[in-house]
């Protein structure tokens, strides 16, 4: 029997070996570190000229807020944006990857990207990873076939809706949408409704907070309103700053300069590139 390992050609796809190991460790009481989730309230709705996407800006690591002003509305194409809930790394990586693929597709076809293209690329990737890529997305955009809004779940299923919410604050936001949404909203009405839904998530869900980001996409172009509303400003900051008294007494100060080993030649030639 030879000692060498027989080389099995890689079959492609995800290798689940480490997942088995993690399960075994968890049973023994060793839990993996908690990863940065976006908690989140993300919403989208279709209005008369296009789609409006909205998101809160809190990123959490377990019970701690690790980013008070993160960006959850990701660029996919000049006419398509995607809000991401779930594990922050997963949403960033998957939207980045599909955005790259869409750019290459645009060069190849010479045409504007369609929302269904982004949808299919995302859902295929997520399904391939069987829900282990924890990204719940709200994808919206306007293309030649009109305005589109979709939700994508981590396991790869999708819905096409006139208004949608995802994330831990989705119930709070959906309550607002269900009572106030109607077809043919104007731009300002739409932005107001989206802001209200996100605020409902911010104030009623612990996983969401800080500011409201809004993105309006129409046939003519897009408007990314970063921090459109800031309902949680930091009040009572001390303008004088904070000073902490020194606790250790200084007994002796002695400065020994290190030996100069470098000779500085004034006006020498610049280093060759």
């Amino acid at each position, binding site marked *: 029997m030879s000692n060498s390992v027989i080389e099995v050609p890689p079959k492609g796809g995800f290798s689940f070996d480490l997942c088995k190991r993690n399960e075994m460790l968890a049973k023994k009481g060793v839990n993996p570190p908690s990863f940065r989730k976006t908690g989140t309230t993300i919403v989208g709705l279709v209005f008369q000229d296009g789609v409006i996407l909205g998101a809160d800006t809190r990123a959490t690591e377990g019970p701690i807020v690790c980013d008070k002003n993160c960006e959850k509305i990701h660029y996919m194409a000049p006419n398509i944006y995607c809000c991401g809930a779930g594990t922050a790394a997963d949403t960033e990586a998957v939207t980045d*990857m599909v955005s*790259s693929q869409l*750019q290459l597709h645009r*060069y*190849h076809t010479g045409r504007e990207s369609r929302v269904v293209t982004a949808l299919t690329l995302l859902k295929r990737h997520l399904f391939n990873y069987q829900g282990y890529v924890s990204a719940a997305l709200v994808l919206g955009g306007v293309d030649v076939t009109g305005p589109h809004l979709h939700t994508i779940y981590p396991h790869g299923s999708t819905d096409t809706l006139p208004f949608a919410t995802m994330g831990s604050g989705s119930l709070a936001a959906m309550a607002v949408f269900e009572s106030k949404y109607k077809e043919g909203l104007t731009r300002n009405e739409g932005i107001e409704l989206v802001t209200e839904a996100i605020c409902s998530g911010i104030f009623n869900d612990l996983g969401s907070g800080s500011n409201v980001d809004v993105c309006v996409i129409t046939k003519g172009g897009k408007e990314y309103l970063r921090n459109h509303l800031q309902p949680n400003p930091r009040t009572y900051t001390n303008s004088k700053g904070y000073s902490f008294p020194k606790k250790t007494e200084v007994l002796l100060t002695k400065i020994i300069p290190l030996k100069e080993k470098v000779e500085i030649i004034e006006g020498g030639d610049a280093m060759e590139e």
Partner: protein
Amino acid sequence: MGDSQYSFSLTTFSPSGKLVQIEHALTAVGSGQTSLGIKAANGVVIATEKKLPSILVDEASVQKIQLLTPNIGVVYSGMGPDFRVLVRKSRKQAEQYHRLYKEPIPVTQLVRETAAVMQEFTQSGGVRPFGVSLLVAGYDDNGPQLYQVDPSGSYFSWKASAMGKNVSNAKTFLEKRYTDDMELDDAVHTAILTLKEGFEGQISGKNIEIGIIGTDKKFRVLTPAEIDDYLAEVE
């Protein structure tokens, strides 16, 4: 590439030390339609003849000058289908660089990677070298740049260069006309005049293609109407 029966390279050395396949590839380039590029002080222009095999061909469907990134464009002399393959590979490499570094790829890097691909095909099993020479024009933090890449995989930076059928006349013409402080508009005029030198028939916006990039760092192909305007200025 190695599991077929052709796991040996088809490009092999001759007794005199030359790679004959590459020489032949350069001949293929030399019989292709003329293309040229000129680097101005504030931009780069690349241009090519667009002689279609028949008047029945829809000239709007043919585009010889292609975009690799928003600030880098490319034109070729030689075999069109080989060019398409290289353009696709280069675009992917530029996009991968962007994914990794979140920065647009510098012109030299893209040229280097494209040249590496072309060299691969002179040393891999069962493939032949590409029958195109490329002229890559770009504008990045190092200013305007123009590179020529050959089927062997060697690349050079040029102030002005030409490839294809009329190369010797075109290069002599460019050597006489080129000045270091040329503006982009002057460069376009010079490019048109150079193409006109060896042009058979009536030159117009429909049978040449011109691509420019200026200080705005946005590469674009001129429309036939714009080319006609420049032609009128040159007359």
